[in-house]
């Protein structure tokens, strides 16, 4: 009787050990990095650096014989302040290395306009307003699977894409739209095991923006960084 009990206990222990060994092998072989067909959902915060929106002047047409160039009534120098916002993405892995994704970013950046050089000596002043900014974009990500680390958990990537820029002025009654193109590099770090995994994602890059709330008519290069919680399935 006592012999049978020991055998049973031994057999259970052996079976558990075998299963554990098998499970570890499956994670390492099948899910070290995302593979084609995996879907990633991420959300977090984004930050964009401030940028110039252009220097303009209030000008009047100069009479002949009174000087050259337009008469400047005053100057207006506008800047977009750095702003943090919320962002979310959904993407699909086409292969272990390549994924495509779409995303949205919302922020409330502050615009300031330095008014100076008044012809009637009005005191310099900073006028301001707050925008509601929305960027809807699409990107292609290329993951350097050969450079993964941490047992396949950490995977660096580069990305590039473009999107639609929408700036709503205060009261949301006036909308300025434009385009945005971006490129950069980042890192995925996955935790857990199995098909459903959670990870973190961080990236940084440059966003080239045309249109939107802008008084210069030029393309602005804006440094950006984002940090997200990501879910893979």
């Amino acid at each position: 009787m006592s012999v049978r009990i020991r055998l049973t206990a031994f057999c259970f222990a052996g079976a558990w050990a075998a299963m554990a060994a098998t499970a570890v092998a499956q994670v390492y072989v099948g899910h070290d990095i995302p593979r084609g067909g995996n879907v990633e959902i991420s959300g977090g915060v984004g930050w964009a650096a401030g940028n110039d929106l252009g220097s303009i002047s209030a000008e009047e047409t100069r009479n002949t014989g009174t000087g050259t160039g337009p008469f400047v009534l005053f100057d207006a120098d506008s800047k977009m302040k750095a702003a943090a916002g919320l962002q979310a993405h959904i993407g699909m892995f086409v292969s272990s290395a390549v994924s495509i994704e779409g995303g949205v970013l919302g922020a409330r950046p502050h615009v300031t306009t330095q008014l100076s050089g008044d012809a009637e000596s009005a005191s310099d002043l900073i006028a301001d307003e707050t925008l509601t900014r929305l960027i809807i974009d699409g990107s292609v990500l290329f993951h350097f699977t050969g450079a993964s680390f941490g047992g396949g958990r950490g995977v660096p990537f580069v990305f590039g894409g473009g999107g639609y820029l929408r700036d709503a002025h205060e009261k949301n009654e006036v909308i300025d739209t434009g385009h945005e193109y971006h490129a950069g590099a980042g890192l995925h770090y996955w935790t857990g095991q199995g098909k459903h995994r959670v990870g973190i994602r961080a990236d940084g890059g440059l966003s080239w923006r045309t249109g939107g709330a802008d008084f210069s008519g030029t393309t602005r290069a804006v440094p950006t960084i984002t940090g997200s919680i990501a879910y893979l399935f």
Partner: protein
Amino acid sequence: MRRASALMLTALMVAALSSPVSAYLKLGTKLGTRTVTLKWSQLPIRYFVTDRGTSGVTSTQLQQAVQSAFSTWEGVPTAQISSQFVGFTLATPSSGDGATVIGFQNRPGLDRTLGATSFMIDTTTGAIVESDIFFNSAFSWSVSAQGESGSFDLQSIALHEIGHLHGLAHSAMGETELRPGGRRVIAAEAVMFPIAFSAGTILGRTLRADDIAGIGDIYPSSTYTRNTGSISGKVTKSGKGVLGAHVIAFDMQTQKLVGGFSLSDDGSFVIAGLDPGPHVLRVEPLDDGDIESFFDATLNIDVDFRAQFYNKIIVVPKAGGTGGVELKVVAK
């Protein structure tokens, strides 16, 4: 009942006025206790041109210059106006004959007046029923496409006077400097500025944003109603309204300048005909020398305050208005 009214505008004085600031202004008149905007109630405006030219300008060239000026105003998409040249006449451009007549008159006594516009109005409705324009042939005139040194451009001056004929008063969007014998324009951003550009230039042939906003305000087309907006508010000093302050709206996207005046004792102003988008707001006093070119001399126009900016960017909505702006100014 119709009665002749002596609303004589001495426009485009070569010298005499003072400085800066902006704003279109509509002509108005008192009917009993109410003030009404002067405008034509019947379109097209039917006009005659005098069959007399002046040195260097034939009557046909006069008619062509006048017609070009009418066409320029009628080309404003935010305004609904029209005119019709009826024919040449031997009548003089003087009020009271029931016909709108435009032509030269020799007025050497008006040595600083290039031209003037007079009206006859219906005193029950304020509608303009006749308006006459004379160009002072005591000056040298030109209809040259590129302008002519030493001569005033007839089309430019006609554009200004026909602005009056439609009901626009003077704009203060300009700068002048004091010189021996009077003031000279340094710069202007409105055809309706009361002082003309120098002889020889054709800069005055082009309407500016302030003129366009003004004509649209008086004769709004559906485009005006659908696509423009306004800013309204008050100019106050020590808690009291400021009368006659000039408020300029600067469009940060198009760089257009359009202005308005505070026209009541509580300092209320409205600037209409603005493109939607962010604007900078600036207020300044109308200098003493300017007042009679813009307002009745009996009004207590406050010029004792400093020019200043408003501390918020004002966003003008499409087909709507942003109100409640209070510009608090301080005494000089």
